[in-house]
């Protein structure tokens, strides 16, 4: 099925966010998921072998074309940007939410030992975190969790891909 491969490729290429297998199957209107899975695998392999400027990665529960990591310095030149990066405060706040979610502001502050409202707000604006609702305890504090965008930005298939906290504890011993 030569053309099915092209359709899958075009869909992933045109999608703004990583495109999930479910969506691909849904759009193509095919029940044969296995055929699509095979195509995705073949495409991933093809781009990896070709080793061009970009390849196909599996990220945030979907597929997306991304430039090769060792091209970064050229692309920064193209975009005329300094790597935006996140502050240490933002990264620490993000780490606590990623591992402890759903989590309240108070719980994050207990771990970090500082006020985190500024960091939280920044992460909400960047859509790396979101408000999930409220915790059913006195005061009903708002609870926070990570977003799909978080997975996309940090190049994660899913949250389970993060190393466990235990691994970091062992590092310290």
């Amino acid at each position: 099925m030569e053309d099915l491969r092209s359709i899958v490729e075009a869909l992933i290429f045109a999608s703004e966010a990583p495109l999930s297998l479910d969506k691909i199957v849904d759009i193509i209107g095919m029940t044969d998921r296995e055929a699509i899975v095979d195509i995705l695998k073949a495409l991933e392999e093809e781009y990896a072998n070709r080793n061009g400027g970009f390849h196909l990665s599996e990220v945030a529960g979907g597929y997306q074309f991304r430039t090769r990591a060792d091209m970064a310095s050229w692309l920064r030149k193209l975009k005329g940007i300094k790597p935006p990066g996140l502050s240490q405060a933002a990264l620490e706040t993000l780490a606590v939410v990623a591992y402890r979610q759903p989590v309240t502001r108070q719980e994050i502050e207990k771990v970090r030992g500082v006020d985190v409202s500024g960091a939280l707000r920044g992460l909400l604006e960047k859509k790396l975190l979101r408000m999930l609702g409220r915790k059913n305890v006195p005061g009903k504090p708002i609870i926070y969790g990570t977003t799909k965008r978080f997975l996309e930005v940090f190049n994660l298939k899913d949250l389970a891909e993060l190393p466990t906290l235990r691994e970091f504890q062992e590092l310290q011993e």
Partner: protein
Amino acid sequence: MSYAIKLDIFEGPLDLLLYLIKKNEVDIYNIPIAIITEQYLNHMEIMRSMNLDLAGEYLVLAATLLNIKSKMLLPPEEKEEGEEEQPDPRAELVRQLLEYQTFKEAAFNLGQRTLLERDVFKRGIVPEVKTEPEEELIEVDLFQLVEAFREIVSGLKDEDLMEIDTEKMSLSDRIHEIMERLSVEKSMHFRDLLADVHDRRMIIYTLLAILELMKMRIVKAYQTHAFGPIRIFLAVEE
């Protein structure tokens, strides 16, 4: 000078404390509290002299350290028969430090990942697909919703409008439930509305909801005779 820069990048009191423990090469499970406390207070003094904004959290931890120090100075109490051993006054602080250190490590690991828009980039242009022009759509979550509301009301002069009344929100919930039932049943007994309500606040909200709906003239309440059952109707048919 390098000292000053170092101070600036502490992420908080726990970070400073971890730094001191590492610098002195002491065991985190057996912190020499007297030395570390002194150095901690010195650092606070330097920060203050440099007019750095000293967050209250630094003071809280200073107090904790001094408290632990004084406890450690007390001679161990004579142990009585069967009495449990005194817990180490440093135990809670050690637990906190270890936890923070773990997350600091996790944060470092996150920062080391291949980041989008830093290390890798996605396709730059959205390929055009001919579709009818439409407004640009944004994905929204709760944060965007509150932000939108805040932006709107912050432009208003009326201070009252700034308030969000959580009581009113509960009231709106009750109004919705009543309207939902009325749209099906057309009319109902007031006491039916309270039939499965046991929470006192809920009873009050129900009363307030009915009053609000009557005030807006969405519902009408009738009573056939004094002390008779009160029936509630939709005031205007949709």
